[in-house]
C-alpha cells in the first residue's frame, strides 16, 4: 500500500517541477532581453574578471584597478572569484558570468589547460575570452595581459638575492603549488641565470608548501636546519614570500639568511622594515588590473591595440607593449619593493 502513495507523490512532484521549469523557461527567454536592455545606454560594455581565488590582496588590488579603468573609460566591471583555488570552482564562476552575458571575460586560470573548455564556451557564446596573470596558451583566448615577463620576474628575484648575499652561498626556494605554471617558469629562469651569472651561488633545494602559510614557515625553518650555512631563501609566491621572511625572523637569523620573494606590499612591509626580507619583486598590481579591464573594453568595442611594436600609454600607465605575434599585452618591468617604497601601496 505504500507504493501507490509514493507514485502519487511522484506525480505531484513531477507536475510542480514541470510548472517550475516552464516558468523559468519562459522568464529565461523574456528575461534575457530586458537584462540586455537594462545595461544599454551609456555603457553597454561589461568586462568580467575571474581571479584564481577571491580575497587575496593580489587579486583584490587588480579588482580596484579594474574599477578605476571602468570609471575612466565608461564600461561595467564585474569581479567574481571562488572561495577555493581549484579549476572546477573557477569554471563554475566563469559559467555564471557567461550566463550573465558579459562582453569580455578575463580569467586568471588556476590550471591553464583546464580552463580551455570554459574559454571555448565563452567564445561560442559571443563573449571575448582572454587571460590575465596566468596564460592559457592552448585555449581559444584572444590575448593575454601579462604583468611582467617571466624572464623579468625570475631574473629580478635572483638579482635581488645576489645583491643581498653578495652573489655567493647556498640558497633554497620555497614555492607554493607544485603545478603552478607561473611559479615553475620563474624558477626555471632563476636556475638558468644561476649558471650564467652567479656561478658561486648554489640552489640546494626547491620545496613546495602549497598555499599554506604555516607550512611555508616550517619548511623554510627545516631548510635552515638542514643547511646551517644557508644564506638565502626565495619565496616566489604571495604565501611563501612572507612565510620565508617570518621563518628567518623567528629563527633569529636576520642578517644571516636573506630572503626575497613575490609578495604584496602591505604583507611584506613589516618584514622589509625588520630586514627579514631584503626585497619583494612584484609589479604594480592595480595597474595590471587597470590594463586588464582596459584591454577587455578595447576588444569588446572592436578597437585594435597599437601594433607598431612601440611602447604606448594607457590612461594613467605608460610603457605598455603589445606583441601581436603571441597576442600578449605586457604591463612593463617588474617593480622592486623595499622598505622605502612598500608603504606607498595600500594593498
Amino acid at each position, binding site marked *: *500500500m505504500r507504493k501507490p502513495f509514493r507514485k502519487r507523490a511522484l506525480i505531484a512532484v513531477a507536475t*510542480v*517541477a514541470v510548472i517550475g521549469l516552464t516558468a523559468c523557461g519562459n522568464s*529565461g527567454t523574456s528575461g534575457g532581453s530586458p*537584462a540586455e536592455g537594462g545595461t544599454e545606454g551609456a555603457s553597454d560594455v561589461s568586462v568580467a574578471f575571474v581571479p584564481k581565488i577571491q580575497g587575496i590582496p593580489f587579486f583584490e588590488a587588480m579588482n580596484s584597478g579594474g574599477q578605476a579603468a571602468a570609471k575612466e573609460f565608461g564600461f561595467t566591471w564585474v569581479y567574481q572569484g571562488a572561495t577555493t583555488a581549484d579549476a572546477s570552482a573557477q569554471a563554475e564562476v566563469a559559467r555564471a558570468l557567461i550566463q550573465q552575458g558579459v562582453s569580455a571575460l578575463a580569467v586568471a586560470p588556476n590550471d591553464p589547460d583546464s580552463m580551455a573548455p570554459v574559454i571555448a564556451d565563452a567564445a561560442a557564446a559571443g563573449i571575448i575570452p582572454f587571460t590575465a596573470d596566468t596564460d592559457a596558451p592552448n585555449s581559444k583566448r584572444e590575448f593575454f595581459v601579462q604583468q611582467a615577463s617571466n624572464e623579468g620576474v625570475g631574473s629580478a628575484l635572483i638579482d635581488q638575492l645576489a645583491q643581498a648575499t653578495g652573489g655567493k652561498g647556498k640558497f633554497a626556494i620555497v614555492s607554493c603549488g*607544485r603545478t603552478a605554471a607561473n611559479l615553475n617558469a620563474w624558477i626555471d629562469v632563476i636556475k638558468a641565470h644561476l649558471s650564467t651569472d652567479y656561478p658561486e651561488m648554489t640552489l640546494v633545494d626547491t620545496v613546495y608548501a602549497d598555499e599554506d602559510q604555516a607550512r611555508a614557515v616550517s619548511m623554510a625553518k627545516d631548510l635552515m636546519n638542514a643547511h646551517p650555512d644557508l644564506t638565502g631563501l626565495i619565496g616566489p609566491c604571495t604565501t611563501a614570500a612572507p612565510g620565508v621572511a617570518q621563518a628567518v625572523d623567528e629563527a633569529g637569523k636576520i642578517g644571516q639568511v636573506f630572503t626575497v620573494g613575490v609578495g604584496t606590499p602591505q604583507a611584506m612591509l613589516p618584514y622589509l622594515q625588520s630586514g627579514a626580507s631584503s626585497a619583494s619583486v612584484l609589479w604594480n598590481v592595480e595597474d595590471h588590473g587597470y590594463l586588464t579591464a582596459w584591454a577587455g573594453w578595447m576588444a569588446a568595442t572592436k578597437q585594435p591595440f597599437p601594433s607598431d611594436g612601440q611602447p604606448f600609454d594607457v590612461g594613467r600607465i605608460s610603457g605598455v607593449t603589445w606583441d601581436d605575434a603571441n597576442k600578449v599585452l605586457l604591463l612593463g618591468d617588474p617593480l622592486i619593493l623595499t622598505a622605502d617604497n612598500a608603504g606607498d601601496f595600500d594593498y
Partner: protein
Amino acid sequence: MTSNVNTSVQPTKDTVPEKKERASSVVKVLTTDRMWLLVVLIVLLITATAIADGLRLLVAPFTVRYLSVSLIALVPLALLALAETFVILSGRSGIDLSVGGLVSIAGMFFGSMVVDHGLSIVLAAFITVVFATLLGALNGFLVGFLGFPPLIATLATGYAFSSIALVMHDGAPYSDPKLTGMNELTAGIGPGALAIPWHVVTVLLPVGLLAWMALSKMRWGRSLYAVGTSDSAARYSAINQKLVRASAYAVAGLLAGITALVNVAQFASARPDAGTAGNGLALPAITIAVLGGVAIAGGVGKIGGALMAALFVTWMNAIILIAFPGSFGSRVQLLALGIVLIGAVLLNQAAARHQAT
C-alpha cells in the same frame, strides 16, 4: 512505519478521513524519505529562482539552458557521492577519504597510458578503471580484512595516492590532443536550449542505474545492507562480511576511476592535483552522501538520495552565483550548504517526532 501506513489506509474510497490520511502520508513520505525531500527542495529552489527572475532580482537571466549547462559539475560530484554512499553503507564508521587522491593518481595513470605509451583512449580507460578498482580494493583489504579503521586507512592511502600523483610526471599535467579530444564527451547534447552535457547521459545515468540495481536488486546489495547494519547478524546469515565490506571500497575505487576519466574529459587534461586542489573532492562527496540520507552508522541509505543531493547542491551553487553578485556569491555557497545539511536532518527528525506522537 510501513505497517502503520498499511493499517491506516486500507479500506474505502474517497471518504473524508481517507483523504486526510492520504495527505498526511504524502507529507510523511516527503519528510522521512530523504530523496523525496530533496526532490521537493529542488522544485522549490527552481520555482523560487524563477519568481526571483521574474522580479528581476537576479544578476543573470535564469534559463533552462543554464541549468543544463551547470550539470557538467554534477557528474564528478554525483559519482563520488555514490562511492561514499557504498562505503558508508558498509558500516563500522565506513568512509573513504582517499577518493580525492585516487582521482588524481588514476587520472595521471590514464594520461601516462595515452600520452607516454600511446594506448587508445578506450583501452587506456579500461585499464585505468581496473587500476582504480585495485587501489580501492587495497583500501578494502586494509579495512575489511586487516581491520584498519576506515577513516585512518583511507586517509593514509589518500595521502600516498596524492603524493605519487604529484611525482609521477614531475608535477606537470598531461595534456595532449588525444586528451583534449575527450572534451567532446562533455559537450552539450539536445536542442540548443537544453544542452545537457553528453556525459550526464552516457556516464552518470548508466552508472547510477547500475548502482541502484546492485544495491536494490542484487544479493550483493542486500549483503552490504546486512553487513552495514550489524556484523554479527551478517555473520549468522552466512555472509562473508569481510569480503562484502572490502568490496564496497573496491566499488568506491571503481567509481573514483570513472570520475578520474570524467575529470580528464571535463578539463581537457590530466592534472596531478585533480582530486586534491582547493578543498579536494573527498569532503564535498561525503557531505553530499550524508545530505542524501545515508546514515553514518551504516546500513541505511539509497542511491536515489545521493543522486538527488548532488543535483540539488549543483543547482543550488549555480543559482547562488547568478543570485548574488561578486565574491559574496561564492561565500554564500558555503553557508547554504551548511544550513541545508543540518536543516534536512532537523526536518526529518521533527517529522519522525511528529509521527511518534
